[in-house]
Every structure is written in C-alpha cells, then in structure tokens.
C-alpha cells in the first residue's frame, strides 16, 4: 500500500518539479528586456573597454612624438616568451659622450601572453597597454610591430 501511494506522490512531485522548471524558461521567454547579447560589430562605436584592459603592449608617446624608453632591455629580459626585442644604437650625445638610445623596440604580438611583466618592470614607465583588441590579420608577419613610432625621440631627463 505504501508503494502505491509513493507511486502517485512520485508522479505529483515529478510533474510539479517539471512545471517549476518550465516556469523559469517561460518567464525569461516573456521578458525580452533581460536579453544580454551584445551586437558586437554594430556596437563598435560605443564599445568602451576598461581602462586597464590589456589589448596589446604599446609604447607611450606624448604629443611631441617623444617616449620614455632608453633601451635598457629589462622588458626583454622579463618577457617569458621572448616576444620583445630591443635593438639599441650607440649615438654621440650633445655632451660628446657616447649614449645608448633605442633604435627599434620590436614586439611580437603573436607570442605575447599579456602577463604584464614588461609593463610592470619597466623602470621608466615607457610601456603600457593599449585598448585595441581586433588583432586578426591574414599574414602572421603583421603581428610583429615596432613600438617606437618613426622619428620619435626620448623625453629629456629620463635616461
């Protein structure tokens, strides 16, 4: 007799639990205001990334096309993947002494894991993270970038 009642209570509880489940999906069906989808390519204009977003490593340049990198190579040493290559050149400074400045700061985006060690360990805060995240290219060689802009020079007093 006990199992007889259990049979019916099983049916009752089963149907009840199913109805509760259906009420959840049903409720969401009738509340389109809760849709969370982002229409990505369309919302590009007002797509605001967080300020700390790690899109790519960039070298910070000011309005006069000047940066703070002196080519010390600490970022290159700190990078776990070898995605940074610093190529310095020796020039003669204004005071006549030989001085090391940066020729090319090469950054292999394809090898970067965005660990942030280069930015954190840069002694002169020359590096930062950019907001750009659309990195897809058809040619892998385009992922290799030169971070110091052409014609840029070092800000005085940073060395």
């Amino acid at each position, binding site marked *: 007799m006990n199992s007889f009642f259990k049979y019916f209570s099983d049916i009752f*509880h*089963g149907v009840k*639990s*199913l109805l*509760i*489940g259906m*009420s*959840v*999906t049903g409720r969401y069906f009738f509340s389109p205001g809760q849709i*969370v989808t982002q229409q990505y390519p369309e919302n590009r204009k007002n797509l605001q990334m*967080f300020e*700390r*977003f*790690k899109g790519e490593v960039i070298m910070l340049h000011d309005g006069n096309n000047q940066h703070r990198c002196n080519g010390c190579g600490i970022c290159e040493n*700190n990078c*776990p993947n070898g995605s940074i290559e610093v190529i310095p050149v020796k020039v003669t400074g204004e005071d006549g002494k030989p001085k090391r400045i940066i020729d090319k700061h090469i950054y292999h985006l394809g090898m970067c*894991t*965005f*660990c*942030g*060690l280069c930015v*954190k360990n840069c002694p002169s805060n020359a590096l930062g*993270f950019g907001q750009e995240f659309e990195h897809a290219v058809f040619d892998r060689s385009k992922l290799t970038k030169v971070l110091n802009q052409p014609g840029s020079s070092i800000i005085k007093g940073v060395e």
Partner: protein
Amino acid sequence: MKEIINLPVSNIEEEEYHINMGPQHPSTHGVLRLLVSLQGEIVKSLKPHCGYIHRGIEKMCEKDTYPQVIHLTDRIDYLSAHINNHAVCLLVEKALEVEVPERVKYIRTIMDELARIQSHQLWWSSFGMDLGGLTCFFYGLRDREMILDIWEETTGSRFLQSYNCPGGVMQDIHPNFQKKVHAFLKTFKKKIKDYDRILSGNVIFENRSQGVGVLSKEDAISYGVTGPSGRGSGWSCDVRKTEPYSMYGQVQFNEVLRYECDTYSRYMVRMQEMHESMNIIEQLIDNIPEGDHSAKMKAVIKLPAGEYFQRVESARGELGLYVVSDGNKTPYRMKFRTPSFSNLSVLDHISRGMKIADLVAIGASLDLVIPDIDR
C-alpha cells in the same frame, strides 16, 4: 545487403564493442579521449588517453624565473587561474619568508573565491548541457560574465589574468571593485535560485544523477579524488580548512560535505560551495584594509636551495606545487599535482556497469578540465 549475411556470428558475452569518446566529442569538454568498451549500452571498462594538449609546462617552468612561471600556471587550469597563481606566490613567499601585506591577503582570497564561483558556474552550465538541458549553459555563462567583467576592470584580462605576483598583486584593485562585487552578489543570489529550479529539483535530473557513479570515501582517498568530488563522498579534504592560507583561517565558512557519494551529491556540493564562497566574499569585501598592494621584493627572486611544497584548494580539488630549488633564479624542478589528473583516474572505476549516458554525467560531475590533466 551482402554485408548483413556475411556478418560473423559471434558470442555476445565475449565480444566487446569499442567506441572512442573524444578527442572531438561534445561531452569531454576538450581533447580527452576515452576508449570505452561497451556491451550494448553498458560501459564495461574505459581507458583514458590524454596528452592531446600536453604543452610541457613543467619543462617550460625550469627555464622561467618565478615571476614568469605565473603566466604558465594560468594555463594549467584556466578556470582557476587565480588560485594557481596564488599557489606559486605562496610558495615563493614561504621560501623567502616574506610577509605580504594584509590587503594582499584579502584581495587574493576574494579573487580566489570569485574564481571558484565562476568555475562552478561554468561547471554547472556544462553539466546541464551534458545532461541535455541546453538552456543551463546560457544561464551559467550569462552570470559568469559579471565576474569576468569585475576581473577585467581590475586585472585587465577576462580569463588568464596573471594577477598575482610574488609578494603581492600586480596592481591595486580598481576603485569600482567593491561596488561591482556587491552588485554581483546581489544579482547572483537571485539567479542561483533559478539554477535550483531548472536543474537541481528537476525529477529527470534527480533520476539521472542519483545512485550514478558511486564513489566510496575509501576509494576517493585511495584514488586521491579531492575537491568537491571528494567532499561529495564525505571526505573532508578542503585545504582551506586543513591548512589555511591567506585569509581562510580567519573567515567563517562551512566545509560542504555530503555522504550519498553519487553524482547528485557531487553536484550538490558544488551548488552549496557557491553559497559558501559568496559568504566568504561578503565577510571580506567591506573590510579590505588600506595598505600597499605588494611587499617589497628583490628584483631577481632566488629561492634558497631545498624542496618546497605548497597546497591550495583550487576549484576542482587540491592543487599541489612541488618545487626543488638549487638556489638559482629558475626552479630546478617544478611539479604540479593537479586535481583533474587524479580525478580522471577514478573515472574507469566508478563508471563500470553504468550506461553511456551515465558516463557523460559522471564525467561532468568530476568537473575535468583537460589542460589541468595534460599540463
């Protein structure tokens, strides 16, 4: 129709039906291959074949300095990236006897618990999907998005943050952090009720999971099944309780234990753990002390020669980190004892005699993350 007539007459009892589940299979959540021997629908035995995404992280670690190791640990168990980082940092700090600021401990603990919640959310999503309830997947991911946003704002990345560093954290928390965490807790407390309504209480789900994949406590210990899967077998194996680190010694929380030992109990442990994690975060979030976000460390970190071991509770179990140092700036040997690797070893044992559908449910309830197995 010739083929049918020419079929070899075979003895049903002796013939086994081998079928590959994976590497490209929806239920293995990655590239894990299970070679299953079937008899009809019944699983006779199965052999896991792993290594499809073995990247040799242990070998790579031997070339990297300790701060550089962090970004590799992100990629072991990507769902508890914070916790893996935490393990390395704790080990280095313990070896160097560095005292980290209180603020760092608070931040790390909160981040760990957020990682645990989002890992369990994703597990819940894929668990529902493995059982055929596709809607669960979207609800889980929808709520997980809030945590990823919180992380993105503070750490700059959504998934593999590399946020911890030996001695502290990379950068201080964002001014919005506390506000957003509060908003998340408030929202998620409502949403988690939906999880219960749509899956936990469902009669089909209960029938699918109860009595399926029974793992006794002795077997759990012997196979080293830790984390929520072990606690679902009634084994009190929470490292946060047995060897408290960071703030875990000072917050109030319950170690969730269940004794049914089946898929359902492993499920319920994780559901309860989400509540406990929210509880821990609530205790900490308003009391983060002012201070520095990192202790002063030397520019080059060298561990004294010797052997070190650090255990932390990751989202799927006990993560052990064994380091042999010879005094250099790179570890001499670094071994990760990953929870999923041990949890996988029990899959054959508990799924024998079950049906294929049960195998999927059991696999999902163990919450395997394939990079965690392969490393």
